[in-house]
């Protein structure tokens, strides 16, 4: 049974740790703080294209954003519901392929295709959830791996629909009032807004009663079903929710690459998505973006001093798995806790976190 360090099923305890303190929590103080945070993020988004070079914006920032959006679906599944799915690239690919097929084969309007792809994400998630509703832990991992590879082979072998090995090339992103979304800056803004939107939405779900059920699934399936929840239904709905952001990631990836092929969803990509999420840490959804950034940076810049970038990525991944349970975020949070303890030890005043909720235990 997967029991992360931070595993608790008590809602108030979760709030104290800030796990539930999301964008729209009840307290207005929090709301204000969140609005300020959103403003800061907005300012950062607006400033990024000015601050970084064109190359970095295209190769690092935008790529990390769509990879992070796809990763956040896996981070949600692992971090919230304890479901390790290797089928998220299947969802990602389903949305991407659907959009490409509708536009390039059937001349459907781009926005209709985008809408269809966004709906296809949760639907594909739902189907994967229904197939794997009875599994958990390692079995789930292997079943979803089989599904992920199945979809890859489908894309590669079923040529009448998917054009086989070559996939779809020459996909043009939509143009709004003369602004081509495939160009660097517009694509960046769209991706950034989508990323913020996805995080807010997933956090809203995490704060809802459904989110509590997901954490129940993660922490203790038996107790959850004893409380009258259907673990199967909880699993299926978690997959559907996660499918939403995987689908959006797929849409953006096709806009970014202008193409989709079986290579976008092969086993290397399946593993890469898991690496992204694990390096970042699943303790928070934002970890997926951190992991995506680290992997993209490694892939882009490591080849300046080594030819073996894959070895480096693999080795970094192994080291992080070895030293931290929750990826880089886990290391950061551990360091912060230790710093607090050290300050306390030397008689200093602990930097008290704001506590909007009354302490329940003495």
């Amino acid at each position, binding site marked *: 049974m997967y029991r992360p360090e931070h595993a608790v099923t008590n809602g108030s305890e979760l709030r104290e740790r800030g796990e539930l303190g999301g964008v729209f929590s009840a307290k207005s103080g929090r709301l204000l703080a969140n609005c300020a945070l959103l403003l800061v993020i907005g300012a950062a988004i607006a400033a990024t294209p000015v601050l970084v070079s064109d190359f970095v914006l295209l190769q690092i920032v935008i790529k990390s954003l769509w990879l992070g959006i796809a990763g956040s679906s896996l981070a949600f599944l692992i971090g919230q519901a304890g479901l390790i799915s290797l089928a998220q690239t299947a969802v990602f690919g389903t949305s991407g392929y659907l959009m490409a097929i509708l536009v390039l084969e059937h001349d459907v309007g781009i926005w209709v295709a985008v809408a269809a792809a966004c709906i296809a994400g949760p639907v594909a998630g739902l189907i994967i959830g229904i197939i794997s509703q009875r599994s958990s*832990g390692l079995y789930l991992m292997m079943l979803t791996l*089989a599904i992920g590879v*199945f979809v890859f082979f489908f894309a590669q*072998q079923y040529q009448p629909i998917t054009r086989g090995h070559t996939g779809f090339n020459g996909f043009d992103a939509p143009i709004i009032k003369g602004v081509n979304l495939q160009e660097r800056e517009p694509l960046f803004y769209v991706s950034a807004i989508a990323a913020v939107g996805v995080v807010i939405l997933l956090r809203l779900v995490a704060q809802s009663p459904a989110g509590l059920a997901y954490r129940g699934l993660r922490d203790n399936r038996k107790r959850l079903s004893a409380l009258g929840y259907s673990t199967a239904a909880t699993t299926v709905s978690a997959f559907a929710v996660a499918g939403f952001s995987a689908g959006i990631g797929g849409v953006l990836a096709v806009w970014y690459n202008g193409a989709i092929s079986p290579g976008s969803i092969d086993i290397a990509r399946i593993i890469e998505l898991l690496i992204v999420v694990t390096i970042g840490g699943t303790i928070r959804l934002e970890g997926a973006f951190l992991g995506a950034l680290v992997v993209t940076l490694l892939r882009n810049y490591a080849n300046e001093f080594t030819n*073996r970038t894959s*070895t480096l990525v*693999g080795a970094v*991944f*192994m080291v992080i798995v070895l030293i931290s349970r929750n990826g880089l975020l886990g290391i950061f949070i551990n360091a912060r806790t230790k710093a607090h303890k050290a300050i306390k030890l030397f008689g200093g005043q602990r930097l008290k976190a704001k506590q909007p909720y009354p302490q329940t235990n003495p």
Partner: protein
Amino acid sequence: MARRLLGVAVAVLLAYYAVSKSVEIGDRSLLVLLNGLTAAGLYFLMASGFTLVFGLARVTNLAHGGIYLLGGYGALSVQRTTGNWFLAVMLGALFAAGVSLVLYLLLRLLKGDDLRETMLTLGATIVIADQTLATWGGIPTDLAPPSFLTGSIHLPGSPLLYPKFRLAVVALAVLAGLLLWVLLYKTRLGMLIRAGVDDADMVSVLGIRVPLVLASVFMLAGALAGIAGAAGGTYLSLAQGEDNRILLASLIVVIAGGLGSLRGAGAAAIIVGLVEAFAQTHHPVLSVLITFGSLIAILVLRPQGLIKGATHVQA
């Protein structure tokens, strides 16, 4: 009950379909059968080690495909210097066992957190694949079979030819299966392994040094994968991506057979090998889809596999 009846009906229909299709192509279906059995032999070599490691250590060793490749490439290097196939296989297997041992020592650092262990083996897969690419290059290559196994023989009662070496792979798998059976059921180590699969904590309480047993199982699994790599490298080829292909195939076998069950692995290896060979002949475009589809079907119907393996495994 209804589910069982449905299952039986589907199985009968599938069997009817398979037989009618086989009759269509006449005695060439003998080749399909043999191809299936050869693949099954390779899969069994891989899956038996994988399932033992899983049953005992609860580690889903996703680096097993990488170890297969290392065993094959190691054997290739030895054969290139000495020209001896048997020496090559032995040293290749030893090399693979050594790598497997190193992996075990790394895994020990995680103290039984099974999901992180799986992730670690995933990282090892990437490192191994990239290192084999760096050392042996990306051009597919293969080992030369020993001289008395080169060429083909006539199949009894038909004019068809079949490569000798492929038949030898089947024999090798049967031999490995027998040796494993002797090891597991007739030796002290085997007794400890079986006891460990059932209840590792209890074995440890009885004063057995479980880490030593685990280390030997990891080495055994590594050696089996290494032998499979050398054999596969002789009759198929050694190439980048082969590690993933063989890993997926043996995952299918292990899951379909029931994780931790050696008998299940044997039965599932034969089923998967035959289904695959059949699908490749009759539905080449959809072959992989058929293999994976049948796995998904098995898992949906029986989440714990054909034969229930390690008792502590939750489905």
